[in-house]
């Protein structure tokens, strides 16, 4: 989130879309209700009327996968009706930037300039900005130049009129307008609107573009950096934000640094590639400090070596290599992996295309499962359709401790790092993950030292002593201190001298020469000489902070405890808050008061969006794999052969695979219904933990498929009877919940039915609970993230 949970209460208009927040983030509704108490309007846009919709002032039904139609239409509405916050747009976004003549968009073909059909990728240099002689983008602050971003934006969304939006989404026009009218009213200087979104937006082949579209709308309305605004992802696990920050994904390393590539043999080459350079003195270009963060990270891993010396030991990707989860399992199915650690996850039920995943596991020589309960991944070899005699995978199960049995921090959606203490002792010989990792690493190091190997250095030189206390036992405090970072020798930075071993007070003091270590620059400041900042539980606030519920002394958030990001955009160029009744920061003549400002510079001294090279919020976003502007494409499995925005049906850069298990079904009369997957309050993820909890199974005992009475009538299905949901990838037996909360959509003149299934169940337990919804989902993904398109695919439903 750019903002945080409590800040929701400051909003004048809350749009919940691509999310079912009341059900899947129930505590968030505490703050949504407080916003409503103050008069906020709550809007819910969703294929289905849910527990969230029941509390919404406006509910609008929308067919799964058609979000860019809806959001593109909202951008057109904002522009046509001049509802954008002009001063904000000119001063804080790249709306005034001039785009190079190489950029174009073919409205017929649905393609941006620079597409190579052979590779299915774009050459993004075609989308560059026009630079002046100093290398700073040319701008037209009047927003009139036909090649400025603002005019290009206007032209691009001209096609997204009400008729087209309604016919592609299936949303009635009056509902679309009601949403647009209510939400775009937040374009006023002192009003703010917020978006609460989740997997309903991300799990599509256009997932990233869904979010880009909303971010652009928020920039036009001046809703970023302000209280009650922002772009707010509701994370799906209590610590997935933490795991994202520490970069468990293949393409990044802790602190959102890039994973080194084989074509970058030295630290210098690596840093040069990823350190942006701006010649605009007003651009803070914060990533210019990249070399300090990369050096400090490497130093934290290899404390005894200079980062230049240790850099070659960092794991590398080949150029263009995609090692995301879907790719990993595709390679696994081809027999390319000997072994696999499935750590605190359940891909045999949780990953798209369960039959493919389960068959892939059968190709491994060995698998280590670290989890608390038996699950579909650990026991894949005795699952439905599996013959254990034909499977050679040796499975090791390491039972681990539960979160409440371990000490450590979790980071919530609002970036708040909160320390937790162990409540109960782990049962029997179950162990915390940290203990397991440390013991495993030490053993591997020992084997490398004894037996050698093709490249022992990266492993044997890891500074594991920094993960353990004086007794050699895993110590979360030690790791937390390492993550914050400390001075490795007596050092003077910015005129201050620090002794070796002192905790670094903030990332402003990190260095690029190995005199500091920090396992994650973002968390620098979280565990300082003052102590464990994330363990603070003080509710004290000054009046301005209390007005918007900042709680700066409760836990610690990154970066540097700044609660609302991009807050320089919440004030005008003189430092006066746009919303005087809910200011985030304000310039009092000599300093900033309120939240931690986005840099201490005087008002107007730096551009507001300090993390972007040029310093401006990106309405035109030339870094994405599938285009600088979101464009409408259908999900790869869709019910219609054409859409009104262009002749191109699908995202041309979507992640796809070849093979027997990769058949896709669109406009296939055998599978005529749109299907989505979702969640319920009572279960969590693939149900690994919750299916074993009797009170939760009591409340939601079995996998179900929700469908409209119209569809039920079509198939002769009664409420509560067992039905089969099927497509070419698998069949899932479910209980039918027939409900008018699902209604058929009128899309492109046809009646399109949609159904939905919760993905919490698996065959291991309970025996009558049902199997995984992912038996039906396709292994296709977003080109930027690789996330599977599990929210829109095609199925048939029939009586059993």
């Amino acid at each position, binding site marked *: 989130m750019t903002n945080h949970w409590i800040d929701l209460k400051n909003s004048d208009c809350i749009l919940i879309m691509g999310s079912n927040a*009341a*059900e899947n983030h*129930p*505590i968030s*509704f*505490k703050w949504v*209700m407080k916003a409503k108490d103050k008069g906020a309007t709550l809007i819910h846009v969703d294929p289905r*009327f849910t*527990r*969230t*919709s*029941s*509390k919404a002032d406006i509910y609008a039904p929308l067919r799964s996968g058609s979000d860019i139609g809806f959001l593109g239409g909202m951008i057109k509405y904002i522009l046509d009706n001049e509802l954008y916050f002009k001063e904000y747009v000119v001063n804080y976004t790249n709306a005034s930037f001039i785009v190079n003549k190489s950029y174009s968009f073919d409205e017929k073909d649905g393609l941006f300039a620079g597409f190579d059909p052979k590779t299915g990728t774009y050459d993004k240099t075609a989308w560059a900005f026009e630079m002046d002689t100093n290398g700073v983008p040319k701008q037209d602050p009047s927003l009139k130049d036909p090649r400025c971003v603002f005019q290009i934006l206007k032209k691009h969304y001209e096609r997204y009129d009400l008729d087209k939006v309604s016919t592609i989404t299936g949303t009635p026009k009056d509902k679309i307008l009601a949403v647009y009218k209510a939400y775009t009213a937040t374009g006023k200087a002192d009003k703010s609107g917020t978006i609460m979104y989740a997997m309903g937006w991300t799990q599509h082949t256009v997932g990233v573009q869904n979010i880009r579209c909303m971010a652009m709308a928020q920039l036009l309305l001046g809703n970023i950096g302000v209280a009650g605004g922002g772009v707010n992802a509701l994370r799906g696990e209590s610590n997935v934000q933490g795991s994202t920050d520490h970069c468990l994904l293949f393409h990044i390393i802790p602190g959102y640094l890039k994973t080194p590539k084989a074509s970058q043999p030295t630290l210098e080459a690596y840093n040069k590639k990823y350190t942006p350079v701006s010649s605009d003195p007003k651009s803070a270009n914060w990533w210019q400090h990249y070399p300090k963060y990369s050096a400090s990270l490497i130093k934290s891993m290899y404390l005894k070596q200079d980062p230049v010396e240790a850099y070659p030991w960092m794991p590398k990707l080949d150029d263009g290599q995609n090692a995301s989860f879907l790719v990993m399992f595709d390679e696994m199915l081809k027999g390319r992996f000997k072994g696999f650690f499935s750590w605190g996850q359940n891909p045999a039920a949780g990953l798209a295309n369960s039959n493919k995943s389960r068959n892939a596991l059968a190709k491994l020589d060995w698998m280590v499962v670290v989890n608390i309960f038996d699950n579909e991944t650990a026991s894949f070899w005795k699952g439905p359709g599996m013959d254990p005699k034909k499977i050679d995978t040796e499975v090791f199960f390491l039972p681990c401790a539960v979160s409440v049995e371990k000490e450590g921090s979790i980071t919530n959606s609002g970036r708040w790092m909160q320390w937790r203490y162990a409540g109960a002792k782990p049962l029997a010989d179950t162990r915390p993950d940290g203990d397991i990792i440390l013991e495993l690493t030490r053993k591997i190091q020992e084997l490398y030292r004894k037996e050698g190997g093709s490249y022992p250095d990266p492993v044997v030189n890891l500074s594991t002593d920094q993960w353990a206390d004086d007794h050699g036992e895993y110590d979360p405090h030690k790791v937390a201190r390492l993550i914050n970072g400390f001075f490795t020798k007596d050092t003077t930075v910015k005129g201050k001298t620090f002794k070796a071993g002192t905790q670094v007070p903030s990332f402003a003091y990190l260095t690029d020469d190995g005199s500091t270590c920090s396992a994650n620059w973002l968390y620098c400041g979280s565990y300082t000489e003052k102590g464990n900042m994330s363990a603070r539980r003080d509710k004290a606030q000054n009046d301005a902070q209390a007005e918007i519920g900042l709680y700066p002394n409760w836990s610690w958030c990154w970066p540097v405890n700044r609660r609302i990001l991009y807050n320089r955009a919440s004030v005008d160029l003189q430092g006066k808050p746009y919303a005087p009744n809910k200011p985030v920061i304000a310039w009092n003549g000599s300093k900033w008061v309120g939240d931690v400002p986005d840099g201490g510079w005087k008002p107007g001294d730096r551009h507001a969006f300090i993390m972007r090279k040029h310093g401006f919020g990106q309405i035109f976003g030339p870094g994405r794999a599938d285009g600088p502007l979101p464009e409408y494409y259908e999900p790869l499995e869709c019910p219609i052969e054409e859409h009104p925005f262009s002749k191109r049906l699908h995202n041309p850069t979507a992640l796809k695979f070849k093979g027997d298990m990769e058949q896709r079904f669109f406009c296939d009369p055998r599978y005529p219904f749109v299907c989505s997957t979702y969640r*319920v*309050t*009572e279960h969590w993820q693939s149900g690994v933990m919750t299916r074993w909890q*009797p*009170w*939760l*199974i*009591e*409340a*939601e*005992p*079995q996998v*179900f498929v929700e469908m409209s*009475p119209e569809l039920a009538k079509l198939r002769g299905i*009664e*409420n*509560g*009877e067992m039905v089969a949901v099927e497509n070419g990838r698998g069949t899932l037996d479910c*209980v*039918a*919940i*027939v*409900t*008018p*909360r699902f*209604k058929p959509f009128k899309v492109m003149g046809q009646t399109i039915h949609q159904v939905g299934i919760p993905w919490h169940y698996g065959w291991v337990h309970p025996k*009558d609970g049902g199997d995984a919804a992912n038996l039906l989902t396709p292994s296709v993904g977003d080109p930027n993230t690789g996330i599977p398109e599990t929210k829109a695919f095609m199925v048939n439903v029939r009586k059993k």
Partner: protein
Amino acid sequence: MEGKSFFIDLTRCTACRGCQVACKQWHKLPAEKTKNWGSHQNPKDLSFITYKLVRFQEVVKDGDVTDWLFFPEQCRHCVEPPCKYVADAYDEKAILKDPNTGAVIFTERTKALDAEEIRESCPYNIPRADAASGIISKCDMCLDRVENGLLPACVQTCPTGAMNFGDREDMLELANERLATVKKQYPDAVLGDPDETRVIYLYQMEPMSYYEFAVAGISPMPLYNRKQMLAKLFTPLRTSRG
């Protein structure tokens, strides 16, 4: 009037089932064996081992769902509990009323009562008996928690402020405040039996839309209304004490 009360603001309930599960957890009640019967409501009904149940009701107009109503049901801890007055005729120690809070408590001695008679005396259809032992059970206001300065488990858990608990005067004040505010959006909003019960629900529309036994308006015994029924009970007692 003294004692404690619940105020349950149904305009804030999102049916998260936190209250339903918290009650089970605090009282260490076993889970029922359930099936999905075509609804999210599970268990289907209150029982000897289910004191708190979230009921779901879709409101449909011309095929469109206009509302989805949630009713986290529990014993109303009536100010003048009919179940107690019926039980007192047999055993004054079977059903007790706590003098400090007003909580209506079923003891193990309820096993000697006629479970059907007790259930039918309740306008809200709450009491449920254990087939094996005959003991009757229901919400006990988490009296053990309340007497130790804690909130009832369901109230503690509720994230949205639907569940409230405190001194009766404060709860009635809160209820009336919320009613006034809610009426601006929902003109048919009403409090359910605020004078007769210690569990006051705020309904955004006609209470019967939520559940047939939401309020005591239509008693399960169509021959009497509540007043008449109590009068009928009291008469023999007065005579016997005569």
